[in-house]
């Protein structure tokens, strides 16, 4: 078989695999959240970012199959049994291919950058008038929250009203932590001595968790506290409880190891139910 036939055949395989994968990704993608394969989607950020991840996946499929199909085709077709008795053709390059390759990769990268920049800027949008400000203070190994708009009412568990923009002002008292709400696609380091910011709007009522995403010492694994996204009226009553001193401080694992139970099931229940103050 001569060169153009090999090329045509490999290109056909590439085309088929690409189309099949694209269709599969198109069908599977929207189902992932309901299967628990990605975190629940509970904020405007999470919606945007899931779309972005989807587009990146679709774009990378043809590139992936291009390399895999051509290398794989070569491996199966041009294989020799044992030591080859003669050499392949002495081709030292092919200018048109090389130039095309560079142009295509420049175009792809420009698109990725342009789209990423657009998505980045749209997430940085100006804050609305009714933005809720939450002060977050990381501490080994829990999160402290306070609400400056509500007389600095403070708590170690967080509840947020649905559909109201939130701005988190984040800092730390000891070492670097990272404030992560997987369901809201919020992640921002808590750096001692400085305050960092991130904004999002919760869109789904439900029970989620806040994690630390930066290794922060012995009990980093357990720096996970609950987050409730609630209706506006439930939020008002939560604040009222806090203002009347109703919220007990969660014991940090450092001084109360009671909730550090080895068994996975009771650990999960301690985090998600019994542990909420």
């Amino acid at each position, binding site marked *: 078989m001569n*060169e*153009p036939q*090999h090329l045509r055949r490999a290109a056909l395989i590439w085309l088929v695999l690409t189309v099949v994968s694209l269709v599969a990704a198109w069908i599977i993608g929207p189902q992932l959240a309901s299967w*628990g*394969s990605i*975190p629940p989607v509970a904020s405007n*950020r*999470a919606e945007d970012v899931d779309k972005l*991840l989807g587009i*990146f996946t679709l774009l990378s499929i043809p590139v992936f199959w291009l*390399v*895999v199909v*051509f*290398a794989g085709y*070569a*491996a199966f077709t*041009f294989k*020799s049994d044992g030591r080859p008795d003669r*050499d*392949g*053709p*002495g*081709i*030292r*390059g*092919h200018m*048109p*291919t*090389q130039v095309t390759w560079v142009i295509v*990769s420049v175009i792809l*990268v420009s698109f*990725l*950058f342009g789209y*990423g*920049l657009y*998505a*980045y800027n749209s997430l*940085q949008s100006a804050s609305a008038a009714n933005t809720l400000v939450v002060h977050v203070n990381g501490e080994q190994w829990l999160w402290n929250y306070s609400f400056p708009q509500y007389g600095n009412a403070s708590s170690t568990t967080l509840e947020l009203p649905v559909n109201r923009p939130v701005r988190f002002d984040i800092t730390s*008292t*000891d070492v670097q932590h*990272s404030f992560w709400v*997987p369901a809201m*696609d919020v*992640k*921002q*380091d808590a*750096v001692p*001595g*400085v305050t960092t910011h991130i904004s999002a709007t919760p869109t789904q009522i439900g029970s989620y968790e806040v*994690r630390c*995403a*930066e*290794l*922060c*010492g*012995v009990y*980093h694994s357990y720096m996970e506290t609950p987050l409730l996204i609630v209706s506006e009226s439930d939020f008002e009553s939560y604040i009222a409880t806090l203002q009347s001193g109703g919220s007990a401080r969660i014991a940090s694992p450092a001084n109360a190891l009671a909730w550090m139970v080895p068994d996975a*099931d009771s650990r*999960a229940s301690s*985090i998600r139910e019994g542990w909420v103050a």
Partner: protein
Amino acid sequence: MRKLVPSYFAGAVLGAIGFFLGSQYVTHFIGAGNAPDGPNFDQQGLVIGFIGLLFGWLLGIGAFKYPFSWLLAMKDPDHEEEMRLAGKDAGVMRYFRFTTDHKVVGIQYLVVTMLMLALGGLGAMLIRTELITPGAKAFPTGTYNTIVSMHGMLMILTTISFFIGPFGNFVVPIMIGARDMAFPRLNALSFALLFPGLVIFMMTPIFGLIIMNGDGGGVQTGWTVYGTLADQTGIGMTPLAAGVLLIGASSIMGAVNLVTTVITMRAPGMTWTRLPMTVWGIFGAALLAAIGTGAFSADLLLILLDRIYKTSFFYVATGGNAVGAGGGSSWLSQNLFWFFGHPEVYLIVLPAFGIVIDILVVFGRKPLFGYKMAVLGIMGVVVLSFLVWAHHEFVSGWAPEIRPFYMATTEMISIPTGLVFLVVLGTLWRGRLWMTTAMLFAMSFIWNFLIGGLTGVFLSDVPADVQLHGGMFVTAHFHYTIVGGALMGFFAAVYFWFPKMTGRMLDERLGKIHFWGTQIGFNVAFLAMFYVGLQGMPRRVADYAPIFAPANFVISIFAFILAASILVFFYNVIASWVAGEKAVANPWGAKSLEWLVPTPVPLENFEEIPVVASGPYDYGEPVDSGKPIPAAGGGSAGQVAG
């Protein structure tokens, strides 16, 4: 007895004495309150002990002989003496001495880096044992964090040195037609620093977990050693930082030596455009090591000062945590670390680019497809890799206004990397592929590094990174680049050059078992890790929510398969080294210089320095330049470039 002094044995004895004297007595005299009775180590005592260990070791191996004879202006060593120092007539003892021959140093590096690989792999297995089910059952969390930190740091040190060390030393000088490295003594010294550095590094669990109060004494920081936590963490941090500083010094020396060797020692006719890609890859890596390591060394030095002398580089006076006056910055630590940390991953993988391309050429029996493009790809990565480090800080809060710049540079780096992929594909296409184990590993590099590279594009994007950062997706991504890229390249290189380095062939049948075990174990384990990453599992946790349990179970099982196949590799290396089939000078029919010298390679490599008249890639049946290839040869494959 005379044979043992100087040697590594004498060095070990004097090093131990030096450590003991330094840590127990010297500290006492300079008034740090370290009582000389009984084992009582504080951090300053440990560091002084390490200095004592280093000097004892260097004294014992005889590294001071030349500097002092230079200082006293004694007779310059003649050729005869140089040859004795290079291990002439020393037999096996030359591997246990301060020996200047680059081939001896290469073998020493090969053995030690494989030892490091085994230790780091042991760490990985302990991690996977802990994570096989939810619940921190196997280790206390502090011990687990220590294992994670040591696995990360040790594997990084291994992968930094396992190309530049064994192959940079053994192969590169012969490839460029030189008799030795530019500075043979510096070369021997750089290995002689790696070894005590490793010993000091391995004191981390001894002091952190055994001698000093159990759980809190270990290293809690991970390999990123962010300043605020590194200042606060247990005593294990001190040997870790000191050991890594020393290994950093060793790698800077090795890098300076290699760069100088490639620039000044090339044989007549070995022009820059005739260098094999292996040399280009290792040269690029050495440039990165020479420039990047300084940032990390500075970071570690500041950490040690913060810990021992309570300086305020990273301390921030907040709340009850203040030890010094404060005024430090956590972002400073991050930036110093990542300015090294990112070029560092390219430093690991660039030699693999070069070596994989060379192996594909040899076993594909075709010239390199686009030599200049390959060089451009490697050097492009070298330049760009210094402009991307802040993509590790997309969620740190530092300088949000320059994030788009780093997003752009990070995505740009896929252009030179893409060039390397085109070179690889073009070289394979229509070759006559000889599927040896080395070739299989080189081809697995394509698949694995492709996945590593494509997932890297996801992480380069700021909004996507906000979700994925600090999670298992990142862990899977960089394991795909470092294990799937560099480690597969290393295995390919070992199977390829083992006959030249040891005079024995590796067993191909065991090699195939090793190959398939590695590919299946690695790919399933880390594809599953991408999955838990997308699910939202954070990195470096000893315990996790039940939703992540099924995938983690799969990861652990396949990680054990991966480890078992690497045990096969170690067995293969040891058994073949002892009793393998004897190798001929050029078992693969390759055309670069190292295959044209006899096996075992004689002391000064070449009878006469060769005069190089053509490039290393003269494979293939001739094609008419500039004209379309006739149909029998395969259609219009195009012109001959370069």
